[in-house]
């Protein structure tokens, strides 16, 4: 077996920090799009956040959106091009804070596109502020004594929240902190794209991912943080699947 770059990814170094999960998620998406043979049909959205430059790495059409607005942009693009494959790639600040309304309503309308939601529990690009998904007790530059349950509330659980919406077809939370997790993540992401091809409606895969730089941990410690802390609060698993009756 030859290990080579998927056609859906350019052969380039990324700007991501050592130990960051975005590179793994990009790789998985690239492999899935190749395997489904949809590269020339795909339109991706780039979020505001660390992944804003993802069009430097993906070898297909991309539209860069305002912060939080990818679901609105993707809604229009998919309605206009129902035969194309549209996906949003969003971080926790983008999807679960400033863009909560856009995300919930696109999901509830059952828009037939795919969302890859990368949850690393922090605002990475702006330098490590509290995210909606920051864990209780987690130190950030705006919760320097740790997130306070009373003052800042608990982390927002997107899969649990969306699981109550009738319009949603598929929700799964995965991680990319171990090889086994990444393989599961790939399976989930492939299903989320296949659902769109099959016209099943809104699919979202939440990916627990590492941010060693802003967590102020080594890459190895960051993997430990996902496995030992994040997975306790954000439990991996399938939260909704309309295929399962």
């Amino acid at each position, binding site marked *: 077996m030859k290990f080579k770059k998927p056609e859906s990814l350019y052969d380039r170094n990324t700007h991501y920090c050592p130990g960051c999960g975005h590179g793994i998620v990009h790789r998985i998406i690239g492999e899935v799009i190749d395997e489904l043979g949809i590269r020339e049909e795909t339109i991706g959205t780039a979020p505001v956040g660390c992944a804003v430059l993802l*069009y430097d790495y993906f070898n297909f059409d991309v539209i860069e959106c305002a912060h939080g607005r990818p679901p609105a942009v993707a809604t229009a693009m998919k309605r206009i091009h129902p035969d194309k494959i549209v996906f949003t790639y969003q971080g926790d600040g983008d999807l679960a804070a400033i863009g909560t309304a856009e995300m919930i309503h696109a999901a509830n309308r059952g828009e037939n596109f795919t969302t890859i939601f990368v949850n690393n529990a922090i605002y990475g690009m702006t330098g490590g502020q509290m995210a909606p998904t920051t864990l209780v007790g987690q130190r950030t530059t705006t919760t320097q004594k740790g997130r306070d349950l009373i003052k800042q509330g608990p982390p927002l659980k997107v899969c649990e929240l969306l699981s109550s919406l009738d319009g949603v077809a598929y929700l799964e939370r995965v991680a990319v902190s171990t090889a086994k997790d990444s393989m599961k993540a790939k399976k989930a992401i492939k299903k989320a794209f296949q659902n769109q091809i099959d016209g099943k409606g809104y699919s979202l895969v939440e990916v627990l991912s590492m941010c060693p730089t802003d967590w102020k941990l080594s890459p190895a410690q960051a993997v430990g943080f996902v496995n030992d802390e994040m997975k306790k609060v954000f439990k991996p698993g399938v939260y909704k699947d309309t295929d399962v009756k």
Partner: protein
Amino acid sequence: MCQAAIEAGCRFFAGYPITPQNEVPEYMSSHLPEAGGIFIQAESELAAINMIFGASAAGVRCMTSSSSPGVSLKQEGISYIAAAELPCVIANMQRGGPGLGNIRASQGDYFQAVKGGGHGDYRIIVLAPSTLPEIYELTMAAFDYADHYRNPVLILGDGILGQMAEPIELKPYKPVVELPEKDYILDGCKGREPRIVKTLLLRPAEALVEFNEYLKVKYARIESELKLCEQYLTEDAELVVAAYGITARIAIDAIDAAREKGLKVGLIRPITLWPFPNEAFKEVVGRAKKFLVVEMSNGQFVDDVKLAIDCSRPVEFLGTGGGWYPTPEKIFEKIEAVYK
């Protein structure tokens, strides 16, 4: 407006309810799908304008409409659409402000529309119709200007225009300017290199400077090519009234009354508010002794009139803020008072 949009090939509309423009999304919700288009009632003004961002990048003629507070919310998206150089049409049927204000007619959003409103150095084309037949014609043209210049076009109306009824003569749609091929559309990269629609320009450091320079040249070209204006009885006018939109229509009654009394009064009615028709003002400034600006705000449009004539003549002012309109009688009184 809706009929014109559909005839001009608008096939995507996203909007959010707000008075006094609800008739627009209501009409579109039934008539646009009949024409093979897509109507979406968005969850917010932000979502609506960002749907327009996506729709325009997807390659279709698209439109949104709202009224003042809603248009404030759309400003984020308008800045992005201008930066991405995507065509779209936005209608603002202005209501009284600031804040929630009221739902009566106003022209209080002039600065927001003409001077910018969203962040960054950008311009949008602003069209100000004064009658329903003109809304019909300008709406069709708005789509053409948007495509021709790859720029958002705003139709700046008000609550009176938004609520009144008037007969219009339907005309078959015919482009008013050349329509370039859309080589930016995102529809999958089959048979071509991938395309990117983006507005972030970080590197090299000069990239954004160069892009802004490019925009400056583009805006200068629009300014040199697109200026619409109507003049009424200005050939011998010693007092020139300047008004736009519904206010100009009201002012015509007052000017006719003044003419009956032998006062030499005329009207300049800018139809494009950006680009501003400076030349029309420069043309009459030699003859006119004085100008009178009438607008439904407490002083916004008046600044551009002063700039257009380099403050070379006295500029009198009659403004009504807070969602109120000037009556022909009130304008006539002002004309008599300032005419010397």
